[in-house]
């Protein structure tokens, strides 16, 4: 019987490769058990347990940065690329965690589910960053998405939260259906579910591959929020609890871009042309649309959501050049956006704790007087999002420009300049309001030690990693080279 042959080659999995995932997953289960078995457990306990778990995983990655290999029959691949992305995912999750308890306390939405769904989504995101296999990608994608739907909806009595979650769910459902349909076509073409094999496979009916790839990428484009597939994003980001928005904006972006980035080296020469054209057009639309609409927003959270769309556009501009330099730029940008996006949203999360804070733009006026340090770090995040040196935002934009110049995509570069020019309008307006207007109504929020530390760390890292770009670069560059090595 061939069944025996099929299951006869069981390899023992190299569990040390996915140790970080296992640690995070176990953390999730411990939290879950805590919730089930110990009804009186305080939220502080949950926070501490998750923090310890994530820190352990972080330590593991830090101590074994060059761990690589694949296991589970190539369902799982660990390389420096995945370790690198995972590092930042876990780091930012830790940051978000610091803001969760007080935020939810203020919003009367202390659901303990938050903690373990957070860790489950983190695990999925980590898996998304480390696989070429469509099944793993699919499962991880669904894992991240479903957790995000739940996290978005977890705000008691807030209709916006539910509305955002529902829109996210429907568009997310479409995206997953499209991605998996694309997977089906690619499978039909190559008879394999491994992206590496599919894209290097030489066979007849190449249009199946093209069709599949297009569907697959449209699926991811929806997740990323690329125009014209962005409808859900502003609503979901605005509706979600703000720490969750920070989490979705940063970790989500890292996770959803990871598979696309992994495909980049596999775009063959005769694909490259179509790739450049489609991706660059989408990128141009995304950055223009995101910035233009952000310009007219009155709600800062929504504004930042649109700016997140715009940043997806910048990243896509880097992706459109499927060369090693483009990959490096994209990786750098991803990490940069993760840091500064998380920072900007977390500042909002802190401010939203004031009972009368509505996220209106005017409320920022004179913030410098009531909360000088928060205002300063907000300013730095804004400048970084805008791309003022010496922040990470600047370095990443410069790298994208390098990439575009490498392929002589001048029109895209000019559109990017235009888009950045438009974005100057709202970022600088926020800075001007914060620092140069008088106080209309003083908002003061007491921040906890952890929150302060997180904001300081984020602010400093945004500046410092931008001023000394070699730190991230020394990880970005080898990962990109590694991905391009056949």
């Amino acid at each position: 019987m061939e069944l025996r042959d099929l299951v006869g080659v069981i390899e023992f999995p190299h569990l040390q490769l996915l140790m970080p995932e296992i640690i995070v997953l176990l953390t999730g289960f411990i939290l879950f058990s805590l919730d089930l078995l110990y009804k009186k457990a305080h939220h502080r306990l949950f926070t501490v347990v998750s923090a310890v778990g994530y820190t352990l995983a972080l330590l593991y990655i830090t101590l074994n940065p060059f761990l690589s290999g694949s296991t589970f029959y190539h369902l799982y691949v660990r390389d420096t690329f995945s370790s690198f992305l995972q590092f930042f995912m876990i780091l930012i999750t830790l940051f978000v965690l610091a803001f969760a308890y007080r935020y939810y306390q203020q919003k009367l939405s202390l659901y303990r589910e938050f903690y373990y769904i957070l860790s489950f989504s983190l695990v999925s995101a980590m898996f998304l960053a480390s696989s070429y296999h469509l099944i793993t990608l699919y499962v991880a994608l669904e894992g991240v998405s479903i957790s995000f739907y739940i996290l978005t909806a977890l705000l008691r009595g807030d209709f916006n939260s539910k509305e955002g979650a529902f829109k996210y769910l429907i568009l997310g459902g479409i995206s997953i259906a499209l991605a998996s349909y694309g997977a089906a076509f690619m499978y039909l073409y190559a008879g394999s579910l491994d992206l590496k094999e599919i894209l290097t496979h030489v066979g007849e009916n190449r249009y199946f591959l093209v069709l599949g790839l297009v569907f697959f990428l449209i699926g991811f484009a929806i997740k990323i929020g690329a125009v014209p597939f962005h409808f859900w994003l502003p609503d979901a980001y605005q509706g979600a609890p703000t720490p969750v928005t920070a989490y979705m904006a940063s970790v989500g972006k890292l996770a959803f871009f990871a598979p696309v980035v992994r495909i980049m080296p596999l775009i063959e020469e005769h694909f490259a042309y179509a790739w450049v054209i489609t991706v660059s057009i989408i990128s141009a639309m995304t950055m223009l649309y995101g910035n233009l609409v952000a310009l007219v927003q009155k709600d800062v959270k929504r504004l930042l959501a649109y700016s997140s769309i715009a940043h997806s556009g910048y990243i896509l501009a880097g992706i459109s050049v499927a060369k090693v330099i483009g990959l490096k730029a994209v990786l750098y940008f991803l990490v940069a956006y993760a840091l500064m996006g998380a920072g900007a949203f977390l500042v909002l999360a802190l401010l939203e704790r004031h009972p009368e804070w509505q996220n209106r733009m005017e409320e920022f006026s004179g913030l410098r007087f009531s909360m000088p340090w928060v205002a300063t770090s907000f300013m730095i995040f804004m400048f970084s999002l805008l791309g003022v040196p010496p922040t990470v935002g600047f370095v990443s934009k410069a790298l994208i420009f390098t990439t575009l110049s490498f392929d002589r995509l001048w029109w895209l570069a000019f559109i990017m300049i235009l888009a950045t020019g438009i974005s100057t309008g709202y970022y600088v307006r926020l800075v001007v309001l914060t620092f140069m207007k008088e106080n209309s109504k003083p908002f003061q929020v007491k921040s906890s030690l952890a929150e302060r530390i997180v904001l300081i760390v984020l602010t400093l890292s945004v500046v410092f990693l931008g001023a000394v770009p070699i730190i991230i670069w020394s990880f970005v560059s080898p990962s990109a080279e590694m991905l391009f090595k056949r």
Partner: protein
Amino acid sequence: MTAIPLEAYMLLSIVIFGLGLFGIVVRRNLVTVLMSTELALNAVNIAFVGIDAHLSLANGQIFALFIIALAAAEAAVGLGIIISIFRLRRVESTDEITDMRG
């Protein structure tokens, strides 16, 4: 005995997939919209199983199994969200949940 040709499977799945997408765009009832997404996912299942039969492999069926499972999870979450929407405000149509604009 002749096997069912791949084209038949693919055609069926494309039709169902199209119906799913169409339903998402056209229908207004929350639950129907959710069901439409599930329909689209099931179309993918048909495609995978058909391709598997065509290539005489098993990977696609595994994929289909995962799709079934995760689609169920998604549907569960979706229903949960719809119920909570309904509890907050008695709306049934997607036209009525447009609080956030801009």
